[in-house]
C-alpha cells in the first residue's frame, strides 16, 4: 500500500515546527512515532498534503520527575517507559500500559504523546492519563498552554490541540505515599486494540480510605471515558467489597460501547465491570505496599 504523495518537512526546532504548522494549517499532520499515522496514510484513510516530522528536534525525548510532576517529552517512546526503573517502581499503572500497547516492535517507535494526540478512543494511554489526572502542554504560535487531560479529548480522533499546536509534554502529578495504579486490558491477541480496558489510580489515607481515585475506560465509547460516578462512589470510603462492587457497576454504566467484531455492547459493558473490579483490587494492593 502506497500513501498519497505529500510534502515532507523536517524542522529542527520547536519554533520552526510551530511556525510551519501555523502556515500549513489543517493541511499538515505531525509525525512523531508514526505507528498510527503511517498505517492510516497507507490505507488512505487520511492523506495530509504536508507531513511535519518532529523527530529531528533535539531535547524532546525525556522521562523525569521535576517540580511535582512526572514529565514525559513529546518524543519519548513506549519502550523507554518499559525500560525505566522510575516508571516500574513509581508508576505501576503506566508500566502496565506500556506492556500492552501494540507489540514490542511498534513500541520501539510509538510515542506516549502520539498515543494521546491521535485522539483514538481505542488507544491505551488516554484512559491511564485520565486516571492519573495528568495534563498536557501544547505549544503553538501564540505560546504555551496547559490542558487538563479531562478536557483534551473532544471527539473521536479529535483533541483540544489547535492546528498550529504540538503536544510537547505530558505532566503526571507525582503520586503521594500509599498510591498505586493498575491497567487491565482484554485483547484478542497481542497487537489488537482493547475489547475493553480499565485504568485505575488510587491513593489511600492513613486510615485506609480512598483519598484519590481516578478511573479511565478504553475503547468503550466515542472518546476515552472518565468514570466520574464510580470515582465519587469510592472517594472518602474504605474500599471494601460492597464499595468496590458498586463502583465497578457505576463504571460499567458510564461505558457506551458499540457492537463490533470484538463483541456485543452488553458484553463489553459487563467486561468493564469485571475489569474495574480487578484493576481496583490490584491498584489497592499496590497502594497498600507503598
Amino acid at each position, binding site marked *: 500500500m502506497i500513501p498519497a504523495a505529500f510534502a*515532507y518537512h523536517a524542522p529542527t526546532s520547536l519554533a520552526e515546527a510551530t511556525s510551519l504548522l501555523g502556515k500549513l494549517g489543517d493541511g499538515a499532520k505531525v509525525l512523531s512515532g508514526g505507528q498510527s499515522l503511517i498505517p492510516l496514510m497507507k490505507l488512505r484513510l487520511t492523506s495530509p498534503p504536508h507531513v511535519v516530522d518532529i523527530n529531528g528536534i533535539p531535547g524532546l525525548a525525556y522521562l523525569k520527575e521535576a517540580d511535582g510532576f512526572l514529565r514525559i517529552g513529546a518524543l519519548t517512546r513506549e519502550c523507554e517507559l518499559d525500560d525505566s526503573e522510575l516508571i516500574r517502581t513509581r508508576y505501576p499503572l503506566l508500566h502496565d500500559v506500556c506492556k500492552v500497547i*501494540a507489540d*514490542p516492535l511498534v513500541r520501539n517507535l510509538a510515542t506516549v504523546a502520539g498515543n494521546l494526540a491521535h485522539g483514538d478512543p481505542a488507544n491505551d494511554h488516554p484512559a491511564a492519563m485520565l486516571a492519573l489526572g495528568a495534563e498536557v502542554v501544547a505549544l503553538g504560535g501564540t505560546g504555551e498552554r496547559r490542558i487538563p487531560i479531562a478536557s483534551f479529548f473532544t471527539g473521536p480522533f479529535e483533541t483540544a490541540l489547535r492546528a498550529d499546536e504540538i503536544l510537547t509534554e505530558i505532566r503526571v502529578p507525582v503520586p503521594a505515599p500509599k498510591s498505586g495504579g493498575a491497567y487491565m486490558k482484554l485483547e484478542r491477541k497481542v497487537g489488537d486494540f482493547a475489547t475493553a480496558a480499565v485504568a485505575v489510580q488510587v491513593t489511600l489515607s492513613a486510615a485506609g480510605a480512598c483519598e484519590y481515585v481516578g478511573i479511565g475506560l478504553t475503547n468503550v465509547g466515542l472518546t476515552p471515558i472518565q468514570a466520574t460516578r464510580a470515582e465519587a462512589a469510592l472517594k472518602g470510603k474504605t474500599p471494601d467489597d460492597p464499595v468496590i462492587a458498586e463502583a465497578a457497576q457505576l463504571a460499567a454504566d458510564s461505558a457506551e460501547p458499540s457492537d463490533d467484531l470484538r463483541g456485543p455492547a452488553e458484553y463489553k459493558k459487563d467486561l468493564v465491570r469485571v475489569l474495574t473490579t480487578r484493576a481496583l483490587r490490584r491498584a489497592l494492593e499496590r497502594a497498600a505496599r507503598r
Partner: protein
Amino acid sequence: MQVDLTINGEKHQTDVEPRLLLVHLIRDVLRLTGTHIGCDTTHCGACTVLLEGRPVKSCTLFAVQANGKQLMTVEGLEQDGKLHPLQEGFMAEHGLQCGYCTPGMLMTSFAFLQKHPKPSEDDIRWAISGNLCRCTGYVNIVKAVQHAAATLNGGA
C-alpha cells in the same frame, strides 16, 4: 529528497519520494531483498530491520525518516562467510518452514539477545510477540533463539 544512510556498514545515497516506505527503499531501490513484506499493515513483523540498533517495522516508516541513520538488515548477520549463531540456530532447530517470517524473527531476536543474553522461554516469547509465524507455532523458533543464546554465551 536525498537520503543518506548506512545499511550493514555500507553507505548509500539515494533520491526518493517522501512517501516511499523504508521497506521499499531497502528491497526495490537497494535490492536487499532479504527483508520481506508480509502483511503491509504493521501486524506481522516480516519487514523488521534495526534502526539505530532497535528493531522496527520498516513498512511503517518513511525512507526519509532514516536519513543519517544506521540500519541493519538480515543480510548484515553473516560475517566473513560465516552465519550468525542465530542463523545456525534456526537451521539446527528447524526454526522455519516457509521462511517468510524468518528475516524478521532473526532481526528481532538479534536485538533482543544483545540486551538479554540469558533469556527465559517467556522472555523470548514476549520479545517475538510482534513477529507472526503462520507455519511452526513458535516452538522451534524459541528453541532456535535458545540455541543461539547458548552459542553466544560460549556453550557451543
